[in-house]
């Protein structure tokens, strides 16, 4: 995306990727301990996306997607959305609930809780990695799971977050579960002024020229 160059330098994106990797590592460890067998996680993409490009990234404005939503508070306030393709929800739930993968039956309340918990673990891991690297402290609120049209989900979140930056920080994560690849995309939609804070934090902790 062209946007990347305008918003973050390559060096800063590399740093974000590194933070993402550490976060994914934490999350993988947490998940492996929970389910008692190794879960592999890796970061496939890190980028900064203009908010109007998010639906396109997810496969179209009317695409049926699942999203775990969480408000975040602290040095930076905003919203975290983790999008999953709807088809992988049963596998994600099975992964956490330690049972054999089910067919694409309707999700039970327990399945929904499991997916939310997974969102929570991922978010917690990324946020703590951000804190370790650039000392920006954030905590997240209670997760909600919604399955609906991509744009309808974004609509609602963006309206609620009126004082927002026009970009989202995106970390695409891949899980390897019994030879099946499951992808989830982590989006941080920060409130106005947050990007400057992230730039400053980068400059301070990574001793980079403050060219932002």
């Amino acid at each position, binding site marked *: 995306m062209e946007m990347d160059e305008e918003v973050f330098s390559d060096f800063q994106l590399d740093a974000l990727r590194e933070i993402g990797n550490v976060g994914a590592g934490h999350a993988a460890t947490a998940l492996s301990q929970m389910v008692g067998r190794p879960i592999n996680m890796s970061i496939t993409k890190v980028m900064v996306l203009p908010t109007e490009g998010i639906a396109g990234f997810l496969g179209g404005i009317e695409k049926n997607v699942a999203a775990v939503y969480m408000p975040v508070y602290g040095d930076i306030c905003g919203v975290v959305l983790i999008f999953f393709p709807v088809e992988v929800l049963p596998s994600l739930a099975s992964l956490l609930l330690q049972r054999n993968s089910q067919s694409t039956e309707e999700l039970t309340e327990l399945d929904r809780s499991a997916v939310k918990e997974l969102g929570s673990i991922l978010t917690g891991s990324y946020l703590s990695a951000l804190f370790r690297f650039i000392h920006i402290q954030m905590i997240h609120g209670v997760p909600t799971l919604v*399955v*609906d049209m991509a744009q*309808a989900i974004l609509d609602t979140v963006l309206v609620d977050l009126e004082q927002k930056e026009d970009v989202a920080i995106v970390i695409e994560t891949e899980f390897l579960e019994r030879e099946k690849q499951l992808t989830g995309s982590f989006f941080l939609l920060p409130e106005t002024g947050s990007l400057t804070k992230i730039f400053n934090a980068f400059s301070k902790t990574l001793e980079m020229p403050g060219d932002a």
Partner: protein
Amino acid sequence: MPEMEWVVGIAETKTAMSPDRLLAIGLGSCVAVTVHDCQKKIGGLAHIMLPSSRFHAKANVKGKYADTAIKAMVEELALKGGEKDRFEAKLVGGANMFSTIIQNPLPIGTRNLMAVREILVEMKIPITGEDVGGTQGRSLVFNLSDGKILVRKINQSDIWI
């Protein structure tokens, strides 16, 4: 003339004439207000984000707010030959998709709907159909030839209002 489909994006307002269609895609808490003049076969769609421009210092985007968007749309229809006595409105959207978003004091979808109804009453435009509220997002296709609206939801059959 071949028929055209116009997508009305978030915070936009558009008017058009039969045989064209107006579309709004992926309405969450947003509300689409349509106004139709069945005799002239013209109509407008406002894709509204927020209930009122009153509390927003920089309310420069008219299409964003229920009050300014509906008024601008109705004025535009009148300029195009629409007759106010014939105007009929329909409402789609205003869902409350997230239960945990801080709802202060009511969810934004509900507040949008309340504001829209109030303005339509004030402007004496009757509401002749609606598919609103609930927890699901919606898309719509508004036929300007007959004023009918097709509403789509995920995993549900399409409905006409």
